[in-house]
Structures are given as structure tokens and as C-alpha cells.
């Protein structure tokens, strides 16, 4: 009887409970249609007095969860997998979020009833680790969403944020940037629609609405966090790339930071601050947390920005260096960034690799390497005043320059070059040379209080003093570590210049010498001073001898002037011999006698192969004036007595090596005065005839070939001899494809050196010769072997 009573009561109570929580009923309509005899509060009190409030809550939450799992979440995720590929619309994501929001909002009344039930029972409990039922619900939502996460849900999310970000950027930049191409005027840069149909405002509205909903549901981070991060990172990368394109002469770090703070952070803060807080406990809590989230994001993004910018600049560093000092703003940016982010190691590696691939190979000529090295010294000095970076990065450059044998000459040439050159400019700063010196200077110990430790990547074998050497010329000299080498090279160069110009005008050279003396010290350059004085004195002696009729110089058939040198102070002259025509020798002897008379107890030794001759050549049909070297003059002179000569004959009569005569005679061939009638046999062309008519410009001053060094010509002659081997080498490489240096030498010794020419060749010499061929692109060198370039 009691059982029936109980059963009846229970049925009534259950029916009331189902009315209160329709979700529990599987036949919803029945209870909903029925008018309940009790109001909600009575039902709750009944539940509490029956001690069943916990059970009811559990039942309701189970149902809610199954609703989530079986209906709401699957429907939500389904919207993400419908489309594959990209959309150009916000709609899919927006619709999905709207639908989710609506479905979840429909649960809210149930939760409110549960809250009321707890209040009635005056109990507090934790479900899913949350004491608030709303939070419990959110945990369930997140769990359900997560458990059913489809594979490609990010595509639609990304579209949503990508499109809105574009619109946002556009609206931010509208005033700052004008449309770049006329095409864009008809098209909104934000939404891509025609300007009249611009969707930007509605996109922004939809964007805020959707973010607001996600924020309320605490789903923003979960659903969009990764996508946002990826998107922003990509945006930063492309923005940095775009910014760094082209010139290095504008600083960017400030404008990049500004861009991040206004555009990116502006966008993010709009995302995180939207929402109407329908799902929120309190407004304060969420504001605090979103401010926190934002500031944390800002910090992370800033570092990301610095890193991206730094890496981009490091990739460009070689070009930045080449353009220094125009690129100073870029260098300065990099300097600031390196203080924030430690990418020194990366920089060192990258730059060294760039230097190696773009600079340190035989295809680049030495002056270019030097120019780059000087630019690197300057740029890296700005980048890292401690000098450590410079020291480490340029180590391979120095090593390479040491290996090249024309380095000193190139340095000296550009030091004293006319016109603007970096080194000449450095030279005119007139500082004393600072050479590597491992003993600590007095200054080091005196300024101990301002001492700073070297960075960790510093080479401990060098003092910081020597590393901080700021002087470029000193750094170049230090490539060799010896002043003498430089001074000697300068002396040779000066000798060449004085003897090739032959114009007694030493003003400019004296000026350079004064500058060099400041650098290298007086005593080192004393020889050069005497050389310049020789030229100056020669001029005076010439004037004197020619003005005094006692010396009989003016009765001569042609005027002789002389450069009279103090042999002890000049570099060694080459040992080429040359027998001048008797007629000429007589004139020289007259001059010598005049000199002996003037100077008493002193005489002259002529260097017959040096100097310059001005002569008229009269042929049957023409008269031409030439300025040539003595050997050229001698060759053509002999064709007066006989109009056909062989190299052998000329070589004998001139006491000059056949190779030299052969080389020099080509000048007259090129002028059309001689032609080769048989190998090594030449004939005078008395009448130019139609073949060469019009090809002979009058008053030719020999150029290029004739400016060759009087000092180094022996080496050049050597080069000429090696040229003989070139055909052999080409032949070998055609047959064997590729060969090492040693192998080439071995083969040459076996075959080429067996012939009538008995030229010895060293490995070193051959290497230089082949390297020159590589530089001329007639040969390739990689992987330790030489090849012919594919034609």
C-alpha cells in the first residue's frame, strides 16, 4: 500500500521534474503540453526534501552533455568539412559560430534552473573541476568540441581571419597609402569588391559579432588561437619582406614596431575585446584576462618581428655591406636588433658563406675583393664596435687575400689612385699605421677602469686593442703583417709610373708620398723620395745640357732627353738587353759625354729598352707619326735597310730574345706597316693598298701594350711563354674532361716540355696561369679539378 503511495508520489515528482527540465523527458511534448499543477519553486523544494537534488543535477548534466556530443557539436563541425578549398567569404565560419552560439544559448535556461536548484538546496559542489555551473558547461563544450575536432577545420577559420585582417589593414592604411596602381581604384583593396559594392563595413561588423560570441563562450583562444598565431606570423613575415625589399638607406625598425603596435595589435585587441558577456560571470574578470593575454601576445609578437627582421637583414647582409655607407640605416637597424635577439652566430655563418660564394673565388678580381673587404670593415665596425664580429667574419677574406699575389699591388694602386677611392680617402686622413702588436700598450693599463670584457665569441689570441683597430689601411697591411712588403710594392709601382709617363711631372706623386710617409714612416719611404728627386734633377740636367751650346746637343739630328736614375734606390730593372741602331747610340754617347763633362767623374749607363721615341715614318703613299718604345723603334728602323726580316735575324742584330721580338713586332703588324709573309718572316708594306686603307690612324700613341711595366715585364714575358702550353691544356681537357693541377703539370712535362722550347714550369706558376684563365672564363675550377666551360 505504502509502495503504491510512494510510487504515485514519485511519478508525480518525476513528472514535475521533467516539466522543470524538459531535457530529461524523452517524450517532450507530453509534459510541455500539460499544465503543471506546481510551480518551479515548489518542484525544487520537493526535490530537495526528497534529497534528490544531486541526482537530478547529474541527470540533467548528462543529458546536456549528450545533447552537446550528439547534436550541437557534430552540426557545428559539419559546417567545417562541407567545403574543401578556400572560400573568399567570412560566411561559413560566421554561420557556424552563430549556429553554435544559438544552440548553446538554448541550454542556458536549463543551467539557470540548476543554479536555482542549488540555491534552494543551499549546496555548493564542483563538477568538472568548476564550482560554477556555467563554467562546468563551458568545460563540457570545449571537451566535446575537442573530442570531435575534424582534420581540416583550420581552413575556414583561417579564411575568416585572413579576409577580416586584410580589410582591417586596409582601413588602417587608407590615409597613409595611396592606391598603387590605377586598377585598384575600381576595386576595394580590403574586400576585393568593386568600390561601390564595398563589403568592408559589413565584414567588420560580422567579424566583431563573431569574435564577441567566441569570446563569450571562451572559445576564441581554443578555436582560433593557432590560426591567429600562424596568420599573424605569416603577415609579419610578408610585411617584413615587403618592407626590406630594395633600398637599405631607410631605417625600418621604428616603422615596423609602429605597424605591429597599431595595425596588428589593434586588430588583435578588437578580437579580444568584443563580446556582450551574456555567458560571463563578471565583466571585470574577462577584461583583466584579455588585457593580460594581449600584452603577452604583444611581447611574443615583438620578438617574432625582431627575429624576422633580423634574419631578413642577415640574408641581405652581403649586399648591405657592398652598398655601405649608403646602407648605414640598415646596418644601424641590425645593430639594434642584435642587442635584442642573439643571432650573432647565425650572422657570422651566413655572412661568411655569402662572402665565400660571392667573393672568394678566382672569378672575382682582386680590386673588387678589396673594395668589398673595405666596405665590410666599415659596415661591421658600425655593427659591432668591439671588432669581434669583424675579426671573425672577415678571417677567410684575409686568408684568401694573402693567397692572391696581386693583393699588395692592388692595395697600393688604389691607395694612390686618382679620383675618388675609398682607400685614397682613408689615406688622406693621415693616421699612423696601427700594426698588430701583442704586447699590451700603455694605454691598455692606463684605462683599466673603462675596460669592458670582449664578447664570448672573441678570438682569445688577439688583444682587444688590436681588434679595435679602426684604421682600414692598417687592416689591409695587417693582412700581411708587414710594412716592408707594402713599401716595396709601392716603390715598384712608383717606378713603373714614373718610367711610363716620362713627363717629369712629379707633383702628384710627391703629394701621395707625403701622405704615405705619415702612414708608413719617413725611413721606409726614403728610397721613394730619392726616386722622385732623380726625376726632378733629370729635368734640370736636361735643361742645363740643352741650353749650354758647349755641349753640342742642339746640333744633333734629334733631341735626346734622359731620365737619370740613382740605381741604388730604384727597384731592380729587368735584364732585357737591346742593341739600339748605331745612329741612335751615337746620339746617346754624345749625351753621355755632355753629362760626364757636367758632373765630372760620373758617367751614364743607358737602359736601352726603356724610354719613348717619337718618329715619323714616310712610306710611298703616306707619312705617319708614332710614339713608341725603343724596341719598336729599333725593329722598324731595321726595315729601312732591308724590307724583309725573320725573327731570328732581328733577334741577332738587336741582341734581344726572339720571344720578345715576336711579341713586339705584332704592334707594327697591327699598324699595317708589316705583314707576315711566312711564319716568323715579315715584310714591309710600302703601299697600304685597298686592303688596309683607312685603317691607319695617324699620330698613334701606343697604348695598352706599351704601358706595361718596365719592372714586371719579365713576369709578363713568362706569361707569354706559358701561353704556349694553353693549346696543350685545352687539348688534354677536351679528351680527359677534368684534371687536377698536379695531373696537368705531369702531362705537360711528359709532352709539351719535350719540344724545342725548354721552359721549366713550377706548380705555383702553372696554378697562377690557370687561375687567370678561370678569371677570363676560359676554364672552370671546382672540386679541385679544372674543366673546360661547356660551349
Amino acid at each position, binding site marked *: 500500500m505504502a509502495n503504491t503511495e510512494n510510487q504515485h508520489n514519485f511519478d508525480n515528482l518525476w513528472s514535475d521534474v521533467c516539466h522543470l527540465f524538459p531535457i530529461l523527458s524523452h517524450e517532450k511534448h507530453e509534459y510541455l503540453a500539460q499544465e503543471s499543477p506546481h510551480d518551479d519553486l515548489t518542484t525544487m523544494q520537493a526535490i530537495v526534501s526528497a534529497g534528490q537534488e544531486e541526482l537530478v543535477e547529474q541527470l540533467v548534466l548528462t543529458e546536456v552533455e549528450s545533447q552537446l556530443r550528439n547534436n550541437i557539436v557534430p552540426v557545428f563541425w559539419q559546417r567545417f568539412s562541407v567545403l574543401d578549398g578556400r572560400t573568399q567569404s567570412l560566411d561559413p565560419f560566421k554561420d557556424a559560430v552563430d549556429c553554435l552560439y544559438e544552440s548553446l544559448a538554448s541550454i542556458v535556461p536549463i543551467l539557470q534552473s540548476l543554479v536555482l536548484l542549488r540555491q534552494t538546496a543551499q549546496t555548493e559542489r564542483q563538477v568538472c573541476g568548476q564550482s560554477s555551473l556555467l563554467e562546468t558547461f563551458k568545460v563540457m563544450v570545449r571537451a566535446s568540441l575537442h573530442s570531435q575536432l575534424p582534420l581540416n577545420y583550420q581552413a575556414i577559420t583561417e579564411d575568416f581571419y585572413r579576409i577580416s585582417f586584410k580589410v582591417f589593414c586596409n582601413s588602417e592604411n587608407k590615409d597613409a597609402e595611396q592606391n598603387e596602381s590605377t586598377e585598384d581604384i575600381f576595386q576595394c583593396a580590403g574586400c576585393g569588391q568593386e568600390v561601390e559594392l564595398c563589403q568592408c563595413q559589413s565584414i567588420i561588423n560580422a567579424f566583431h559579432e563573431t569574435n564577441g560570441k567566441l569570446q563569450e563562450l571562451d572559445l576564441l583562444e581554443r578555436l582560433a588561437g593557432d590560426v591567429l598565431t600562424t596568420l599573424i606570423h605569416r603577415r609579419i613575415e610578408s610585411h617584413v619582406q615587403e618592407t626590406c625589399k630594395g633600398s637599405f638607406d631607410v631605417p625600418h625598425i621604428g616603422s615596423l614596431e609602429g605597424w605591429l603596435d597599431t595595425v596588428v595589435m589593434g586588430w588583435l585587441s578588437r578580437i579580444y575585446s568584443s563580446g556582450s558577456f551574456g555567458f560571463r560571470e563578471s565583466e571585470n574578470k574577462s577584461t583583466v584576462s584579455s588585457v593580460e593575454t594581449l600584452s603577452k601576445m604583444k611581447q611574443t609578437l615583438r620578438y617574432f618581428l625582431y627575429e624576422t627582421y633580423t634574419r631578413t637583414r642577415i640574408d641581405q647582409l652581403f649586399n648591405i655591406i657592398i652598398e655601405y655607407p649608403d646602407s648605414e640605416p640598415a646596418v644601424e637597424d641590425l645593430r639594434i636588433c642584435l642587442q635584442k635577439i642573439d643571432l650573432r652566430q647565425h650572422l657570422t655563418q651566413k655572412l661568411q658563406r655569402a662572402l665565400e660564394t660571392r667573393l672568394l673565388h678566382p672569378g672575382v678580381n682582386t680590386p673588387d675583393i678589396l673594395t668589398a673587404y673595405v666596405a665590410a670593415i666599415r659596415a661591421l665596425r658600425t655593427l659591432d664596435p668591439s671588432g669581434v664580429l669583424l675579426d671573425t667574419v672577415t678571417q677567410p677574406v684575409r686568408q684568401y687575400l694573402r693567397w692572391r699575389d696581386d693583393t699588395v699591388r692592388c692595395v697600393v694602386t688604389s691607395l694612390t689612385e686618382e679620383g675618388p677611392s675609398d682607400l685614397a680617402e682613408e689615406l688622406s686622413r693621415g693616421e699612423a699605421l696601427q700594426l698588430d702588436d701583442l704586447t699590451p700598450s700603455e694605454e691598455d693599463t692606463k684605462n683599466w677602469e673603462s675596460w669592458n670584457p670582449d664578447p664570448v665569441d672573441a678570438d682569445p689570441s688577439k688583444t682587444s686593442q688590436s681588434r679595435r683597430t679602426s684604421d682600414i689601411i692598417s687592416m689591409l697591411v695587417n693582412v700581411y703583417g708587414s710594412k716592408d712588403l707594402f713599401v716595396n710594392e709601392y716603390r715598384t709601382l712608383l717606378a713603373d709610373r714614373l718610367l711610363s709617363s716620362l713627363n717629369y711631372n712629379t707633383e702628384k706623386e710627391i703629394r701621395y708620398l707625403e701622405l704615405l710617409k705619415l702612414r708608413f714612416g719617413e725611413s721606409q719611404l726614403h728610397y721613394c723620395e730619392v726616386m722622385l728627386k732623380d726625376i726632378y734633377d733629370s729635368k734640370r740636367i736636361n735643361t742645363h745640357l740643352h741650353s749650354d751650346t758647349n755641349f753640342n746637343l742642339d746640333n744633333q739630328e734629334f733631341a735626346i732627353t734622359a731620365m737619370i736614375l740613382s*740605381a741604388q734606390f730604384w727597384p731592380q730593372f729587368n735584364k732585357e738587353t737591346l742593341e739600339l741602331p748605331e745612329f741612335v747610340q751615337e746620339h746617346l754617347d754624345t749625351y753621355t759625354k755632355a*753629362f760626364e763633362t757636367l758632373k765630372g767623374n*760620373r*758617367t751614364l749607363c743607358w737602359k736601352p729598352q726603356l724610354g719613348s721615341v717619337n718618329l715619323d715614318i*714616310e712610306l710611298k703613299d703616306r707619312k705617319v707619326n708614332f710614339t713608341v718604345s*725603343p724596341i719598336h723603334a729599333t725593329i722598324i728602323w731595321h726595315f729601312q735597310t732591308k724590307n724583309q726580316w725573320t725573327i731570328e735575324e732581328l733577334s741577332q742584330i738587336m741582341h734581344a730574345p726572339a720571344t720578345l721580338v715576336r711579341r713586339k713586332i705584332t704592334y707594327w703588324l697591327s699598324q699595317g706597316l708589316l705583314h707576315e709573309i711566312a711564319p716568323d718572316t715579315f715584310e714591309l708594306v710600302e703601299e697600304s693598298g685597298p686592303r688596309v686603307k683607312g685603317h691607319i690612324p695617324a699620330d698613334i700613341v701606343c697604348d695598352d701594350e706599351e704601358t706595361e711595366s718596365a719592372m714586371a715585364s719579365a713576369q709578363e714575358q713568362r706569361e707569354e711563354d706559358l701561353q704556349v702550353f694553353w693549346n696543350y691544356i685545352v687539348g688534354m681537357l677536351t679528351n680527359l674532361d677534368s684534371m687536377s693541377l698536379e695531373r696537368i703539370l705531369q702531362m705537360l712535362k711528359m709532352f709539351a716540355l719535350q719540344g724545342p722550347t725548354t721552359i721549366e714550369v713550377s706548380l705555383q706558376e702553372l696554378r697562377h696561369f690557370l687561375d687567370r684563365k678561370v678569371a677570363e672564363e676560359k676554364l672552370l675550377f671546382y672540386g679541385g679539378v679544372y674543366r673546360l666551360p661547356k660551349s
Partner: protein
Amino acid sequence: MKVTIKSWTGVATWRWVANDDTCGICRLAFDGCCPDCKLPGDDCPLVWGQCSHCFHIHCIMKWLNSQPVHHQCPMCRQEWKFKE
């Protein structure tokens, strides 16, 4: 063909006409200069003695000044007399 030389600029080195290459006192080249000089030639000339030995003028002067009593040629020990 007729070749007419209009002018000729030649290059020569000068040297002292002496029976030796180096100064017997300082052992440096006659064509250079004595240890006290910077510039050769006119600024540091040679002188000959009647014994036909020759020296940098600065070298022999220094030598003679260091010989308080008898002025002798440092090479042959004959009495030093400048050749006229």
C-alpha cells in the same frame, strides 16, 4: 720607307767612375751614399786621393779627423793627399 726620329727620351743610371764599387771606409756602395747622408750624388760626392784610392767625402773627412797626427789613406797607409 724612311724613318725620322724626332725625339728620344732615354733612361739611364748614373755611376761614379771609380776603381771599386764600395767605399773602403763605410762599405756602402759609392753610388749610394755614406751612412750620414740621405741623398746620393751631388750631396755625397766621392773624393780621390793621390794614392788613387777614393772614398765618400764624408767618410774620409771623418777618418782624417780621427787621425790627429798623420793623415793616412785607410787603404794603403800612404800619406793622404787630395787629388787635384
